[in-house]
């Protein structure tokens, strides 16, 4: 399985979003639209394959009779994120760094996380349009019109006990450790829960409880659970009722 596949899917979703902005599209439409924009190895038959994958992943729906292709709510959400990242990146590169538009923005949209996008959005003052004049889909940060960037990376030892956080990166003190950490699935993108910090750090990671020392905990960097960033990967944390019987009685 090739990584290009994931990027390809993203590109198709992005294209569908563009078509959506103009109006509804047909299958033939999107094939035409995308062939030019994609790398060489994705012509012809392959595009069909990607569309099949999109359907199987429940990202798009194809109406059998009219051949009209549309994004599902899930696909819409993902496309929205990609487009938002892309256009914000353009803004960032164009406004702040004075670079050529499109240079690098394409890769950028596949790499950045939701939190980072929101941070950039806030940093840029919630821009409404990309340098091409196309609308930038608004994020949660815009709704809350956040003024300062407070969603950022913190060290695991700064996290509150009982809280979930997603690993951003791990500063690996030595090469050997990469293998051990990966074996235990401590890697970027994984959600961990901090159980305790004294006398030893204990985290829960993909269903496994792991004890680690302070030094390592300092080296694991996680996304702070921000007020406005919505993270699809963090499981919904049920609000624990401390004394359920008290609540019941009040009813």
């Amino acid at each position, binding site marked *: *399985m*090739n*990584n290009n596949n*994931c990027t390809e899917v993203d590109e198709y979703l992005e294209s569908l979003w563009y078509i959506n902005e103009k109006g509804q599209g047909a299958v033939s439409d999107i094939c035409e639209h995308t062939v030019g924009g994609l790398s060489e190895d994705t012509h012809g038959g392959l595009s069909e394959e990607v569309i099949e994958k999109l359907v199987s992943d429940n990202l798009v729906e194809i109406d059998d009779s009219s051949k009209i292709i549309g994004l599902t709510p899930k696909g819409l959400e993902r496309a929205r994120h990609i487009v938002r990242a892309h256009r914000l990146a353009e803004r960032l590169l164009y406004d702040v760094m004075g670079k050529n538009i499109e240079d690098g923005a394409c890769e950028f949209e596949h790499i950045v996380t939701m939190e980072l996008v929101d941070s950039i959005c806030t940093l840029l003052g919630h821009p409404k349009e990309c340098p091409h004049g196309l609308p930038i889909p608004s994020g949660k940060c815009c709704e809350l019109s956040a003024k300062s960037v407070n969603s950022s990376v913190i060290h695991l030892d700064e996290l509150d006990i009982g809280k979930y956080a997603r690993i951003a990166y791990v500063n690996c*003190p030595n*090469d*050997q*450790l*990469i*293998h*051990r*950490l*990966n*074996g*235990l*699935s401590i*890697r970027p*993108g994984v959600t961990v829960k901090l*159980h*305790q910090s*004294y*006398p*030893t750090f*204990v985290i829960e990671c*993909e*269903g*496994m*409880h*792991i*004890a*680690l*020392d302070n*030094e*390592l905990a300092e080296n694991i960097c996680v996304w702070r659970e921000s007020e406005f960033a919505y993270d699809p990967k963090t*499981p*919904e944390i*049920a609000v624990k009722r401390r004394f359920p019987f008290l609540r019941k009685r009040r009813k």
Partner: protein
Amino acid sequence: MGLLDEKTAPRLKDKERKVLILGLPNSGKTQIYNNLTGTYNLVANYHHTTIDVNRAYYEHGGVLYELYDMPGLYCLFANSEEELLVRNLIFSEEPDVLLFCLDANLLKQSLMLGIELMELGIPMVIALNAIDETSKKGIWIDTAMLSSTLGVPVVESIAIRGIGTRKLKSSIERAKAPKASIYYGDMIEAGLANVIHDLPEDFPFKRKTAMLLLLNDRFLEKDLIEAFGENQYAEIQKNLSGITSQFVGSIGKIVYYKRSEWVDQLSDKIVKTQDFDQRSMAKTFAQMSRNVVTGIPIFCMIILITYLLVVNVANEISTLMESYLWKPVMDKLSSMVPSQFWREFLLGSHGLLSLGLGGAILTVLPILSVFFVVFNVLEDMGYVPNLTVLTRRLFAKVGLSGYSIMPIVLGFGCKTMATFTTRTINSDKEKYIAIFLIAFALPCAPQIGLSMGMLGKVGFKAFLIVFSVLLITEITAGVLLNILMRDDTKNTYLQALPAIRIPNVFAVLKKTYYRLYMFLKEALPIFLLSAVFLFTLEKIGFLKIAKVFLAPLINNFLGLPNEMVDVLILVLARREAAAAVIMDFVNKGRLDFNQAIVSVTLTTMFVPCFANLGAMIKEIGLRRALTMAFFITASSLVIAGALNKVLLFFNHV
């Protein structure tokens, strides 16, 4: 040795297939091995229960299967000798089938190892184990989808209850080479092709070897030089550094990024999860046992409960056995044997039956039975490794920062096993300290049980004194060794903790039975032989001379009665035999409070048992092991002597 032993095996030799069981630590490999082969090997709910390779045969459909049970591993990149052992075995044994034991609770971690194993291209069968626990947690795994995606048979299994065994046997017949593979990107693939080109034609698992070389595996060097000489290896290395210098970032990170992406995609496809997170009792208990505020009281409670059970229940059993079973038989026997010599040989103070058989069955067996039940419950719960969380800071003070904590904690189970587990330590200093501390004042499970039994007769205070002395001794030794062996390489402490499980009654009883059976099988002959040996020594007058000769040491310095010479001789043979004699002395009132404390402390530390010594020799070599043993014996005498003086001093005050 399994359903078929080595002798009947050759009959089917032409139809023999080699199956290797692989998986993460604590994923249930040994349980599956036991189920398939019908043997019993010790299983427990923690990592490193299996530290050596077990082998057994079973027959299915006219084909003879040679099954290998292996220690667990996280990846093929070797971090320790133990993992290296597994990897070398895979590479050298050319197995026909890999039986991958996949812990359903740890699906992603397991798949991370799984993809590495699948890259080897060996036919594979997956046992999806502990499926009962995941379904309780609201996790649903699409077994059919997993099977069709990977192209290998997947069997749902609940190994601890033996479910899935039959299906597994028939699936092993149908094992297929997995069709999953990862494309690591143009640059790494080109690098791999380049390294593969350098490796000799007939080298097995070239792609994997090339990958490990790219990841800078330090254990490969020796093998490669051995396989095709210094010169060619130097050339490979030169080429390799050329390739790796082209990369800006870390190859390891890219490789793991690709693998984790593959794992995430697969697991998204096959796993459905309910958001509802059940608060289970086991989970709450796990958290409480790790927390300082609740964990320490829990630990103390466990010790106290064990003590009370061992002292009261075991002594009760022992007394009942003595009065209703032993005494009538012995009385009868005594009247039947006319000759004075033979009566003494069988029933005297060093009699074959009274000391040998009686010691083993009347004194030691009841204590061990009760203690093992408690201990096995704790073991199957997975409680013991959770102690590492509480004790880590203490261990750091004695120079044990990383891998060595687990082996030492395991030393409370069996010192020999724990000594072998030090293979997972990759710092020489830590390994040395750990082996020393395990061999020194650390009481192993039978020792704890027997000490409780012995000291229970003189009071709980005695128990507290002995265990405090042992703890202080152990910490002092650790601190001293840490200062003496200056070496500042710091190891990272990173330890996966087993999930707390509610133990299965049947499994606990089976394990207790097995442990007692092993005890009787191993120790009973030694009990009997040492009784005969002591009897002979007494008859030829050696004991009398030894008692006179050792009187200054035993009477004056240690404050113990002369008869303790017997005990010291017995300790050399088998600790439990010595314990039986001490217990007998306490019962007969020949040892007072102080003397009981001193003798238990002494026998706990005295010469390491043979098995432990063997393990030490294997791990650090004959010379160092013997030096250690000598030092341990000498200091145990000094400490016991000092303890005697201190106790006497307090008696006078």
